[in-house]
């Protein structure tokens, strides 16, 4: 129990509980299953992207192109919809092709970061510009609605299992898969290791270039899945719909306790971070806070959270140093 309380994730959970209590007092509409499911379903895309971003931040890199990649895949899927027959086969095709497109784009990022050794922020800034430019060039910013979507896809997006929207299951599968990779596969352990200490991980024989390539490729793969989720959720393709989402994704990961210096981070922590941001936004709407002030509150909480996180990290480091001196 004591170790549970000490965990970083616990403090976020505590904040979430406090916020939930306040919100359910402010608005009785908050603590209904319907509202909570809506909140989660509305943030599936952010959740999937944040899970991928967790791996990248664990290796102490960053990827600002995730929203752009997701949009690019969504636009490609939208273009593909016109040619697909109206049967379950289309659904299979989409679930095969979208992640592959994402994977390919992510691999380009990964190749440039690991083999050409360009800093990740610069690479992804470059690909962000290129992808956004190409998407706007080809779509002219046009919004694509669901009229030419295959019926099979629409019924997939409306599907519910046990009263829970299907997209929430997609998020759950992604979370479990990523948790398994991090915890129980060699590549996942390598990702943790190079984030912890790159020098020593190289010395014990971990191929760190391969691990870096993997995290970016996997991020791309998840962007593909997120693109399907986004298309299913909004039942439309909007080339500008995800503008700026990458920053919220990074914020969610950091709020979830992943250390920006690398080496530490968990999938469930990230999910809590996403939930915290999502509840805050939902809560501000329920509490009828002026939409124009919502950003101020969100920004202030991000600044506060990262500062708090950093102060506790520094304290921990100081403690470590003290033990070394005493021993």
């Amino acid at each position, binding site marked *: 129990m004591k170790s549970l309380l000490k965990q970083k994730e616990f403090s976020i959970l505590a904040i979430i509980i406090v916020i939930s209590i306040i919100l359910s007092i402010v608005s009785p509409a908050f603590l209904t299953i319907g509202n909570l499911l809506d909140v989660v379903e509305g943030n599936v895309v952010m959740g999937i992207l944040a899970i991928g971003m967790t791996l990248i931040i664990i290796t102490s890199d960053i990827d600002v192109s995730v929203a752009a990649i997701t949009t690019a895949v969504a636009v490609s899927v939208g273009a593909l919809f016109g040619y697909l027959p109206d049967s379950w086969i289309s659904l299979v095709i989409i679930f095969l092709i979208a992640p592959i497109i994402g994977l390919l784009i992510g691999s380009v990022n990964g190749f440039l970061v690991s083999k050409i050794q360009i800093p990740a922020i*610069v690479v992804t*800034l470059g690909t962000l510009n*290129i992808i*956004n*430019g190409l998407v706007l060039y080809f779509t002219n910013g046009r919004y694509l609605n669901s009229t030419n979507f295959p019926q099979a896809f629409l019924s997939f997006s409306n599907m519910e299992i046990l009263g829970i929207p299907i997209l929430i299951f997609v998020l759950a599968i992604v979370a479990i898969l990523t948790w398994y990779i991090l915890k129980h596969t060699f590549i996942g352990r390598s990702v943790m290791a190079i984030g912890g200490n790159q020098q020593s991980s190289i010395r014990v024989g971990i191929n760190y270039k391969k691990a870096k390539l993997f995290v970016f490729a996997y991020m791309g793969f998840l962007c593909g899945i997120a693109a399907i989720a986004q298309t299913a959720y909004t039942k439309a393709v909007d080339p500008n719909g995800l503008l700026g989402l990458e920053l919220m994704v990074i914020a969610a990961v950091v709020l979830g306790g992943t250390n920006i210096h690398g080496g530490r981070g968990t999938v469930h922590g990230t999910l809590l971070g996403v939930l915290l941001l999502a509840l805050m936004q939902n809560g501000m709407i329920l509490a009828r806070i002026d939409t*124009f002030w919502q950003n101020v509150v*969100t920004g*202030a909480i991000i600044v506060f959270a990262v500062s708090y996180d*950093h102060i506790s990290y520094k304290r921990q480091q100081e403690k470590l140093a003290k033990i070394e001196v005493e021993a």
Partner: protein
Amino acid sequence: MKLSKENILGLIALGTFLLMSLIAPGFLGSNNLTNFLFQLPEFGLLALAMMVVILTGGIDLSITYVAALSGVGAALMLTNGFSILTAVLVAILFGVACGAFNGFVVSKIGVPAILVTLGTMVLFEGVILAITKGNSISGFGDTYSLIGNGYYLGVIPLSFLIFIFFVILTAILLNKTSWGRSIYMFGNNDVATLFSGIKNSRVLMKVYLYVGLLAAISAIIMTSRYNSVKVDLGSAYLLQSVAAAVLGGTNIHGGYGKVMGTVYAVIIFQTISNGLNLLGAHSAIVDVFIGSILIIVLTLNFFSDKFKKKKETQASTA
């Protein structure tokens, strides 16, 4: 004769300029050239500011919102009948205050700059939205518009002179003052810098204050040129300014970077976007070009470094 990184970049800038004057109709026309000079300062000032932060190993994602907030400050003064001087001072005050906030969290609390400015970016955006309710403020009068649209001696744009002044000022501050030297040292190795008796947090704080100042100056030029201000004032320049600093040879991990490199990179970007515009290219294609150039140049850098190292090892074994 050996060429430095910056001189090569200068030649590339000259090359793109010549190329565009050959292929883009009307590029060398006096109309377009003055247009070019009018557009350069607002982006150039933001790129300079970004370079100074990157020298410390940080990054400032809130920079365009700092500029927009400064612009709102000036706009509020002007539309409420205050003098232009007050408006300019208030804009600078807003910019420096935002910089002080970023600087405090980065230098005193020690949070990585990318996280702090990520948060303040959302925060400042919110403040602007709360003030403007998402609308634009406009109508600043003819005298104010002279800052962004006026000429000095009837030939050189006033804003371009302001830009040159800040280029020189930044170069002097970085190369001739102990603060500037400390910035480079801090970017290279902050622990060693601390042990050599430099107050790291004070150096960093001044960096963010200076960034706030440059963002405010850029905002004054922008608001004066457009005669209006909105929450997305200059937001397109955020990624471009990082790209310009990096293309200009500034090391993204800090410690190395030259003012002239950034200026050349700004000229290259400006030439390309202006030229493509004249060629009738879709505005989105400009982004594609900027992203591609960034990646191609850094890839070439990587291979040339590798080639050089290979040559050196060969020379040492021979």
